[in-house]
């Protein structure tokens, strides 16, 4: 029912749960936390999404504590114990140089996380800025920015990344740059589409009537409405990013030996794949689990964040 002129009395909330779920927050922080709590409650109901979140959290923890968790040094060679199958001493076996695969995977988590974090921090941001600017200003700004986007979008991603790496030289930093450069256009498209649906809204007109500058409107009014779908898309894309980085590593254009990057590890195990399957399979499994985790998380976030759900 609609409450009217009457001021709803705000009884002292009983527990922290009531404090979070009240309809009458007393402060900015409470309103924000309450909203976050409502999102978390919705997210929690999706079991698979929680599983995805746990996988991603596990990746972060493993990466943070890698030196503590890893039973061996990732570079420690032991040529007497080459290509040993999984055993009590080496849970996931050893590779062609007798290095402990588990330890290398654990340290490799740092590389994977770094790649993911760098790409997630750059490509969606670039896409967001370009897409909202194109959508909000329209006209020639839109035409120019979107033509650039279309051109970037027309190249196959991996091939373009290969070309960049070939030009910049192999290495993990260059692989990250190449992936970031090739993956912003879809974000720009999404951000522009979202912007187009809201830029005529009355609340944007109202902001202009307050004297708000274009910059303020884009940053404060339009971007918050685009961010939800971008976060979802980014999370879902992370699996692809990991695979692309692994692919570059596999082709010898990403991380260079002896770095324990998962793609490079698969590459180095491929000549033994029939007899000593674990050398290639274990990093493959790690890639699979982490990619799955990001996908599940992204699906769950879509249900919570997608503005169309409100």
């Amino acid at each position, binding site marked *: *029912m*609609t409450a009217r002129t009457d001021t709803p009395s705000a009884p002292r909330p009983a527990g922290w749960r009531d404090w979070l*779920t009240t309809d009458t927050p007393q402060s900015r922080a409470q309103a924000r936390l309450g909203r976050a709590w409502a999102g978390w409650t919705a997210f929690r109901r999706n079991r698979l999404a929680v599983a995805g979140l746990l996988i991603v959290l596990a990746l972060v923890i493993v990466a943070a504590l890698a030196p503590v968790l890893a039973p061996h040094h990732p570079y420690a060679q032991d040529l007497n114990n080459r290509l040993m199958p999984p055993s009590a001493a080496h849970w996931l076996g050893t590779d062609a140089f007798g290095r402990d695969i588990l330890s290398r995977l654990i340290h490799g988590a740092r590389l994977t996380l770094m790649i993911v974090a760098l790409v997630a921090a750059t490509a969606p941001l670039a896409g967001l800025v370009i897409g909202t600017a194109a959508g909000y200003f329209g006209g020639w700004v839109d035409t120019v920015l979107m033509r650039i986007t279309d051109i970037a979008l027309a190249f196959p991603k991996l091939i373009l990344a290969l070309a960049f790496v070939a030009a910049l030289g192999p290495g993990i930093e260059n692989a990250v740059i190449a992936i970031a450069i090739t993956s912003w256009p879809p974000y720009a498209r999404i951000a522009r*589409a979202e912007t*187009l*649906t809201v830029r*005529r809204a009355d609340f944007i007109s109202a902001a202009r009537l307050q004297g708000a500058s274009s910059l303020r409107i884009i940053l404060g009014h339009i971007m918050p409405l685009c961010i939800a779908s971008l976060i979802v898309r980014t999370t879902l894309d992370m699996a692809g990013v990991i695979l692309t980085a692994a692919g570059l590593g596999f082709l010898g254009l990403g991380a260079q030996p002896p770095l324990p990057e998962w793609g490079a590890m698969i590459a180095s195990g491929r000549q033994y794949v029939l007899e000593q399957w674990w050398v290639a399979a274990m990093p493959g499994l790690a890639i699979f689990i982490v990619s799955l985790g990001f996908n599940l998380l992204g699906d769950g976030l879509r249900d919570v964040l997608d503005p169309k759900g409100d």
Partner: protein
Amino acid sequence: MADNKTAHDAPLLEVSNLRVAFPTRTGMAEAVRGVSFSLGREKLGIVGESGSGKSMTGRSILRLVPPPGRVSADRLAFNGEDLLAASPRRLREIRGRRIAMVMQDPKYSLNPVMTVGRQIAEAYRVHSKAGAAEAKRRALEMLAAVRIRDPERVYDRYPHEVSGGMGQRIMIAMMLIPDPDLLIADEPTSALDVTVQMQVLAILDDLCSQRGMGMIFVSHDLNLVASFCDRILIMYAGRVVESCRASELHAAQHPYTRGLLASLPRIDEPPGDLPVLSRDPVWLTAGREA
């Protein structure tokens, strides 16, 4: 089409003990609490304050209550067919083709990045196997029928390029184009000026009297409903508190109805503060059958 031209006295729509509930943190909140009515080939008005459940009543007939809302009813039948038991596929056939609904908020119901003409033409093509040219011709006719001047030009406009009232007429055109048997119109004319409103209502009126279309007309405008409809349900907090013949609305008994009528400004009265409703908790429980 022939199968539904049953005898004129058979009800087109039967609704009994309709309930719509939304789960909330504190349990189920009932937006509609036991509404019953039956509709012949007539114009039934539903009035009531904001939040009284008018839209939810209309939407639940087409099972368009947004999730997580739940609809239940002892009976919900269109032409004798149980809508609660209908398969999703059957419901899609019924929606639009047999029962059409003009939603509140035309600007939200129109796709902002598709021209309005194409949206109407698409609506037509979904339900008939017409070609693109035929659909366009029908769409233009329909735009003209809802009194849009210069249909050709409006056809190619985007929703933000039409005025509020044009947007509403475009929605009406879109809903009428498949020739429905029952039209649920949720505030269809709230953004129209009074003359165009009257002309659009005349179109709807003719469809009811000539084609035997039934209509549920949801509105805030008590004077309009009183003059346009045949019968009126007055809703408060999810219940029908009073129902009457449209011509007798001004003699309504319920204090809520009287309060709504009193809060209307009048042309022939001098300016001054208008009385606002003061609600009585008793109204929450005293319901009536329609």
